[in-house]
């Protein structure tokens, strides 16, 4: 198949498939028709360019490539749905942040940092969203479960990997003042 056909097929596949598709998966799909890995890559690149100036964009997240509506249209499109998107509580976001930044982490360790009991509802909600998962057990008395974030978390927050989240660790040498300046810069 020629370049144009491959590009059309990959485009159709990405639009039709509800989950992101990896380069490998796309390659497997069309391998039998003599499509190379590089062929897939260059088609993706070309598609990304095509959608540069449109209402949707082709992005690369943790589990592969997907088409999505531009984030800046969020509010304008919200009217499509009856329900307003859920806003998560500060407690949930802090718990999620602890799991994302300090994983693997136990519930007890989360409670220590936040100074407050972690409600079972928060853990349940995070698990139902498939943003966190039990990744093991800590070898201390009671063998508490260790939590970590999932690929679904990265996908849902538009990330390919955790390091894309801004760092929250300021080195010990950082004075309070420079730390605040840095923080402010990050916020701009």
């Amino acid at each position, binding site marked *: 198949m020629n370049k144009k056909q491959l590009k059309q097929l990959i485009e159709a596949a990405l639009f039709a498939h509800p989950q992101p598709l990896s380069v490998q998966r796309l390659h497997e799909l069309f391998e039998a028709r003599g499509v190379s890995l590089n062929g897939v890559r260059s088609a993706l690149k070309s598609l990304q360019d095509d959608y540069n100036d449109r209402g949707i964009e082709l992005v690369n997240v943790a589990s592969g490539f997907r088409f999505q509506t531009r984030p800046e249209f969020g509010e304008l499109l919200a009217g499509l749905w009856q329900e307003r998107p859920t806003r998560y509580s500060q*407690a949930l976001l*802090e718990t999620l942040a602890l799991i994302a930044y300090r994983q693997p982490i136990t519930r007890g360790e989360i409670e220590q940092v936040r100074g407050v009991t972690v409600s079972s509802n928060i853990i349940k909600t995070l698990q139902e969203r498939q943003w966190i998962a039990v990744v093991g057990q800590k070898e201390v008395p009671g063998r508490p479960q260790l939590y970590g974030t999932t690929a679904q978390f990265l996908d849902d927050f538009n990330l390919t990997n955790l390091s894309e989240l801004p760092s929250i660790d*300021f080195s010990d040498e950082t004075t*309070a003042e420079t730390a605040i300046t840095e923080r402010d810069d990050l916020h701009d």
Partner: protein
Amino acid sequence: MAEQQSLPLGFVRGEPVIEKPEDLYIPPDALEVILDAFSGPMDLLLYLIRRQKFDVVDIPVLTITRQYVQYVEMMKELKLELAADYLVMAAMLAEIKSRLLLPKPPQEDDEEDDPRAELVRRLREYEAIRHGAEYIDEQPQVGRDMWLSEVSSNARDHVTTAPPEVSLEDLTLAFSRILNQIKLNAHHHIQREQLSTRERMSQILQRLQTQPYLRFGQLFNKSEGRAGAVVSFLAILELVKESMIELSQVTPMSEIHLRRKASFDEQEATETTD
């Protein structure tokens, strides 16, 4: 970032609460809202520190403890459902305060023993996580800021569920496993010729399923040549030997017939076989 002083007190149903008490008088219902807005004692503590532009590494513990305890006392006075976690923090602050008030033994002046150190460490860690929570919340989020495309496709109509594939190699390997199981046993010689004989045996039996008799001659096909005839003949002999068929001949030199071996009671037998 906005000035420290105008940091929102917290978020109530997504709206920042910027109004904050200049003194400690807060209308009762507002206090309830504020308590709801704090995600825990660390959050309240951090707010108190930030409100006065203190740095976490150099907290005036006495002042902060006094203010924190006043908040907590007021909450108790108003009989608000106060989470035990707030009291735990109050106790910890009180302990630090009392240790600071005690005269220091002269040799213990190194930083590690500053009772504030642990609190500072915790506050810094909590503050870092607060930033982490902010960063996560600022990320574009599927279902809130963007939606994924799932256009309809006729592709699903073309999906067929393929049954598992088995290769000839899988089959031969399975058979060698069996042979290994039964070890070296003279009864289990498998030879090429035997196989075609066995196949022919199945074929003959299959034909006898649909017709009661077969003429001996029907089993030989000229196109198969001498080898084919030998295979058919061996198959017939084997079937007779294994009591699977019967041969009959009315008169010498007349046509030989094959039939399924007669059973004593067909009816009964059919019932018992399944």
